[in-house]
């Protein structure tokens, strides 16, 4: 039971981080990892 | 005579550049304007390879016709 909870929490954290990265990059018009992104309008706060 | 009719490999002088102002200005920044030298290096795949100020450019037929030589 404990093993399930620990593994579950670790995995959930990993997926949550992936989701966070995905949302951040999609705001910059890009996929996570892809070097492109940032439209003309978004240049100022673009993190790429 | 237009650049499109020039002989390959001969150093020529530009007499006049025609065409829309925007393109004329752009060519000017590259050093392609009246009084300057230009050499037609070759004609490849419908484009004209020219030497202007130590650099090589490929320009299309329309542009080559707009550059008149002395």
């Amino acid at each position, binding site marked *: 039971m404990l093993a399930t909870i620990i593994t579950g929490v670790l995995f959930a954290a990993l997926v949550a981080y992936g989701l966070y990265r995905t949302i951040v990059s999609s705001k910059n018009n890009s996929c*996570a*990892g892809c070097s492109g992104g940032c*439209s003309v309008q978004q240049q100022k706060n673009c993190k790429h | 005579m237009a650049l499109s009719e020039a002989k390959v*490999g001969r150093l020529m002088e530009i007499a006049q550049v025609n065409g829309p102002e925007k393109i004329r200005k752009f060519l000017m920044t590259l050093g392609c304007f009246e009084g300057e030298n230009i050499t037609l290096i070759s004609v*490849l795949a419908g484009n004209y390879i020219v030497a202007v100020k130590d650099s090589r450019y490929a320009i299309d037929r329309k542009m080559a016709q707009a550059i008149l030589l002395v």
Partner: protein
Amino acid sequence: MIKIALAGNPNSGKTTLFNAITGKTEYVGNWPGVTVEKKEANLKREFKSYSLTGEGHGHGHGSQHDHGSQHGHGHVHGHHHGAGERKHQVRVVDLPGAYSLAPYTSEEAIARDFVTGESPDVLINIIDASSLERSLFFTTQLLELNIPLVIALNKQDLVKRKGNVIDTERLAALLQCSIVEVVANTGEGLKTLTAAAITSAGRKTQPAPEFAGRGSLTEDLDRQSYVRQLTDAVLKRGRNANELTVSDRVDRIVAHTVFGLPIFGLIMWAIYALSINGLGGWASGYLNDVLFAKIIPNAVNGFFERIGVHPLLQSLIVDGAIGGVGAVLGFLPLIMVLFFLLALLEDSGYMARVAVVMDRYFKRIGLSGKSMIPMIVGTGCSIPGIMASRTIEDENERKVTIILTPFVPCGAKLPIIALFSAVFFPGQTWVFPSMYVIAGALIIMGGLLLKNIFPFQSSSTFIIELPEYRLPSLKHALSQMYRQAKAFIIKASTIILVMNTLVWFMQTYSWSLHVVEDPSASVLATIGSIIAPLLIPLGFAGWQAAAATLTGFIAKENVVSTFAIVLSASDDALMSTASPLVNLFTPVAAFAYLIFNLFTPPCFAAIGAMNAEIGGRKWLARAIFFQLTVGYTLAMLITQLGTLILYGHLAAGAIPAAVIFISIIAVGIYLIRKNRNQSLPGGQ
């Protein structure tokens, strides 16, 4: 904080320099127009600490090279810097290339807006020493901005090869700014350069060059004659620039009117064949069939069973996460080899010639060779490809290029091609290159269609600088390969992982949140079944194919990972000739499925980029509709005609397919007619 901006002509080496002094790995190519966005990063520590110990005097020019020593080589003038400034951050901004401050294309405008609007503390003007005179035109404009300027004289190796000599001391004195000779590729002179830049930043002002006619109507002409005087004073030409060089001779072959296109085709075929059949393909096969199919799942299963993890969680992690991500990661070696070879080709300078060769064909569809640049960039990822369309000055041409660029199979689509060709067409090298040939044909036909559907006045003119050929740098190719690999891994461990988790949940649970015995009662199956009927005319039966296509819109690699999860019950590896995929598709339908996933609208991120660049929702909707129709129609034709010809019978859904095909043709003809009538004189 000190802000350094890098400005200069296209292909003068700005991004190479940027990468070298910031430690970034931004996309670099030996052809003009690669950078269309400004990019920012912090200066690497080693350059900062060095520069602040450098204290100088001198004649306003940098020492020629630093010799790796840490002290006292910044022979540049300026003020003494206190130790307190060590803490200061130094930001470096890489700008798109421009030939002048008066912009010709929108990415040139980015450079101008930045240097005039955001007032950097110091400008580093990178000059390609082999075209000094042209570069100085822009330099003299930058000098008038009253921002301290340092010139980085790059590519001196090329100059010396030509037998030319540049008197840098004289030039520095004439322009009243520091000049540092650098070789951005090897890193030579960069410490001196950054030291000079930081020292100059403290100067705050920059004297403008004085020439007759400044501010007058004929300013450009006067500036040119001033630049010519400057050049004559400092440049000794060893050889006539108009002589035929080796580059010119090579051009006559590779950009030949008849042989240019076949040579390009042959080179691309060789690159893909090498990646797939060589080391990359072999390593990918191993990863897919052994590492991610057996070793890792077995180890993790064993571990979880020992510590007693719930079987459902175990299935989520092993079948969902590892199975799905592994199916994509397995293709990493193949992709690395491919991008390594492509980087070598790019670095040689060949790509600019491809634009020249393709210009003729693009002219037929109202575009020009410039449209080739976004498409070449698009072989990596459609997003930078779509953004690279900014180098196209004509608005209509730009729109059409944006619509057509996603047809080029991007890196994310490679796993789909690799999977389907390994399962259905083992050992056949034509499948990979054929996708690019089909892409090329679709681009030409799609362009023709767009030209006839929408009232475009093409005013395309084409001009591109041809850089001299050079021996590709191994270091450059390795760093570009690393960049792609990193992006691929990040993508697999973020967006793909998230989607795989979601797919696993959706195929394990029913709508009432009960675990299902039979996956065809799952959430995923019911969603897939809604779309599945639409895919029957295309020859794709079952909800699995529909579900995989849907997840593919989030990221194209998901097509592969979704199949891996949905078909994980099977004992046979996904990427083998006994793959469970064989039960879903006939080889003809498999080929059609491949086409469908490659040529329908790209992933949502690329659609976002299209939205930002195409100018308006209306055009975005048109673009997506167009891409969807093209992919759908082509896949349908392949299945229906292929089944009839190769198997000798009608495919399922032949009658609806015929009806759909006829209606698409009818709509197409209607749109073309409508446009013809509108564009008739007086018809508007």
